[in-house]
């Protein structure tokens, strides 16, 4: 057996995050011997978690240290980076990238990737999202429509385990949900009060989250409301979806998966005779040795920027500008989602009421702009949604001594409530990533440069996102309503997408309607890179999951038909 035979698999999956985990599960369950490559260390479900460690036992009780800020200047600014979760974020010094414009790139290089630390909100895209590019001309038309992906949402959601409510809204399709996590008394009251008050149909529904309200299988229990997932601490109850809790164990159970941590894929090999990818070149980060692995099909799920980087770094006579890049689109059309504009207020009532438990979700306001003629907005295209919630904090005290100590535990006079917008980011060719010509990281991979910004359409939404939020809260009876804008930079929503977009035309897109490369039919890309638009409604991961399962189904059928 020569080296090539020894390293030969049916399929290779690059990356173990949300989409890589699904590719691994589906390929293995269909009987393919699958090599799953992960650049970081292994993280085993439950065994490797420390979420049950009391906070006071941490040396800094969760605080970020100066050393953390030095080693990870970008990661330490991510919303759920803290003393306990920091092990799931990269060291920025070891993993440099260049920001031509400010771009916060959150990264988790370990088995499970960012699925360990994700936000878990899970919303289907609607017909509006798949038709938007064709209608207004930004980006290229999606090669699929809602009806193409709907059965695959149906397929993945029960395994994901999403708590959500049935609403029968065409612009926010229902899914195969577990029971929703309830609203608290103020949220319910505000939701009730705004009913029918807005001609554009503004409404408040339960957030849809990949936290389980029902047991879902081995190592996947129901939510205990301890609040660890929101802080990036993983969950020993397995009560939220991650690759570690769900897809990778399923893949392992088949006996078909070979999981190889510490393996950075730097290049995909291409054979111009067969016009197929043949395998990948890997750097083992423990030994710094290079290895080659071969397979019939390759799924790239390394995350939006890294998937594109691998392709751009895979140069050959046929593809001097990067593998599968005859369109010149790889790395371009980078999107995130603008977010952080909203309003807050206080609710005078329910003074004798509190909440118990840390609910890992909140309330949601579906989009209400540019759904139809009647809801068209004159200043901008597409739209936004809100996430939020109500709660009751403590008042604190003044002075010192016995009375002060007592006052510290007194509840705040009023409940507070806030809602915050997440908006669509249009695809622009000039928003892009590319590889630096000279600079390389310590593993020899060219450093990624990011040049991405929000433009006119995104800016045109800002005031409306703040003011509409205030209108909702005021209609709901909140007092002292104030608007805010967190002024988040691109990347900080952690919804980066678009660098290898789907489309019908090989001249203007990288992937076809099956997430298959136009140029190289045995490469499939099903992470955020594949998106032709950011979508108006956030929670993109469940869309990656559905597209991945759909792409694997197609790939294996094509393989069996000997088309690839």
């Amino acid at each position, binding site marked *: 057996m020569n080296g090539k035979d020894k390293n030969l698999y049916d399929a290779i999956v690059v990356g173990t995050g949300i989409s890589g985990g699904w590719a691994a599960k589906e390929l293995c369950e269909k009987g393919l011997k699958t090599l799953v490559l992960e650049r970081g260390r292994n993280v085993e479900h439950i065994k490797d978690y420390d979420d049950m460690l009391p906070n006071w036992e941490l040396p800094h009780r969760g605080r970020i240290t100066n050393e953390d800020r030095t080693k990870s200047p970008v990661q330490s600014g991510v919303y759920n980076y803290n003393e306990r979760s920091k092990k799931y974020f990269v060291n920025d010094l070891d993993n440099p990238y260049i920001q031509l414009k400010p771009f916060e790139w959150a990264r988790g290089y370990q088995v499970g990737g960012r699925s360990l630390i994700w936000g878990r909100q899970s919303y289907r895209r609607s017909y509006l999202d798949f038709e938007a590019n064709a209608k207004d001309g930004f980006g290229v038309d999606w090669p699929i429509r809602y009806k193409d992906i709907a059965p695959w949402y149906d397929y993945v959601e029960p395994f994901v385990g999403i708590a959500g409510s049935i609403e029968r809204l065409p612009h926010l399709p229902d899914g195969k949900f577990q029971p929703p996590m309830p609203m*608290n008394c103020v949220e319910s009251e505000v939701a009730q009060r705004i009913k029918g008050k807005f001609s554009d149909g503004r409404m408040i529904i339960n957030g849809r989250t990949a936290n389980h309200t029902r047991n879902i299988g081995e190592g996947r229990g129901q939510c205990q409301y301890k609040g660890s997932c929101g802080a990036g601490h993983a969950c020993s109850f397995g009560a939220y979806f991650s690759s570690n809790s769900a897809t990778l164990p399923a893949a392992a159970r088949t006996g078909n998966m070979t999981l190889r941590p510490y393996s950075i894929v730097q290049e995909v090999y291409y054979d111009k005779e067969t016009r197929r990818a043949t395998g990948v070149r890997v750097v083992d980060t423990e030994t710094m040795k290079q290895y080659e692995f071969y397979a019939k099909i390759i799924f790239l799920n390394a995350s939006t920027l890294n998937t594109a980087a691998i392709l751009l770094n895979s140069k050959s006579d046929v593809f001097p500008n990067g593998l599968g890049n005859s369109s010149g689109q790889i790395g371009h059309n980078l999107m995130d989602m603008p977010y952080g504009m909203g309003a807050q207020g206080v609710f005078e009532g329910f003074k004798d009421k509190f909440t118990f438990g840390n609910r890992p979700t909140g309330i949601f306001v579906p989009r209400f702009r540019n759904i139809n003629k009647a809801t068209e907005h004159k200043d901008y295209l597409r739209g936004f949604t809100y996430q939020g919630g109500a709660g009751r904090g403590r008042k604190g005290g003044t002075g010192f001594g016995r009375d002060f100590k007592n006052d510290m535990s007194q509840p705040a006079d009023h409940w507070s409530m*806030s809602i915050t917008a997440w908006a669509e980011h249009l695809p622009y060719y000039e928003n892009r990533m590319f590889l630096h010509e000279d600079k390389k990281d310590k593993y020899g991979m060219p450093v990624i440069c990011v040049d991405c910004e929000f433009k006119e359409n995104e800016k045109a939404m800002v005031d409306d996102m703040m003011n509409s939020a205030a209108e909702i809260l005021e209609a709901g009876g909140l007092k002292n309503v104030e608007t*805010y804008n967190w002024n988040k930079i691109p990347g900080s929503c952690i919804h980066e997408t678009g660098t290898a977009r789907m489309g019908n035309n090989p001249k203007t897109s990288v992937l076809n309607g099956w997430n298959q490369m136009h140029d190289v039919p045995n490469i499939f890309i099903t992470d955020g890179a594949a998106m032709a638009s950011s979508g108006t409604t956030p929670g993109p991961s469940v869309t990656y999951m559905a597209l991945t399962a759909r792409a694997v189904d197609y790939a294996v059928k094509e393989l069996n038909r000997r088309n690839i």
Partner: protein
Amino acid sequence: MERRAFIIKGGKSIGAIGLGVLGIYSCQSHEPAVFNGEFSLEEVNMINEIGEIIIPITDTPGAKAARVGEFITVVVRDCFSEKEKKEFNITLADINKICNESFGDDFLKCKESERLKLVSKMEEGHGGYKTLKNLIVSAYLSSEIGMTKYFDYHPVPGKYDGCTTVRPW
């Protein structure tokens, strides 16, 4: 994603303290020449004793039992900027200076009544004290005593009740 969804701006003041008066340092000339980030046992004890005045033992243990001084000095050393460290160190020195001027001795050698007078005075306006007090409150509430004795501790609530009459902490 819900990441910010349940951070309620107006209601996130967990352990918030509403100090009305913002003071400034009473003495800028008192600055120690060098501060290496390490604290003496006296300084740790001093923070514990000031803590005990602010959060005394009642039916639950106070700040001294929660060893706020040990934790605060670690946080200042590891988490504070150079500027913040220096300011914090000035505050401790300044407290001793005030004690010496008013009572003729360092804080730790002052009588209980004198310490109370000192804290009362700083409550009226002292910028460095405000930071120290915030640290003491946060150190106490995040300690094992704060989380389990002062508050009711529910590490695994097991359920969510969005409308309960029982105060959950």
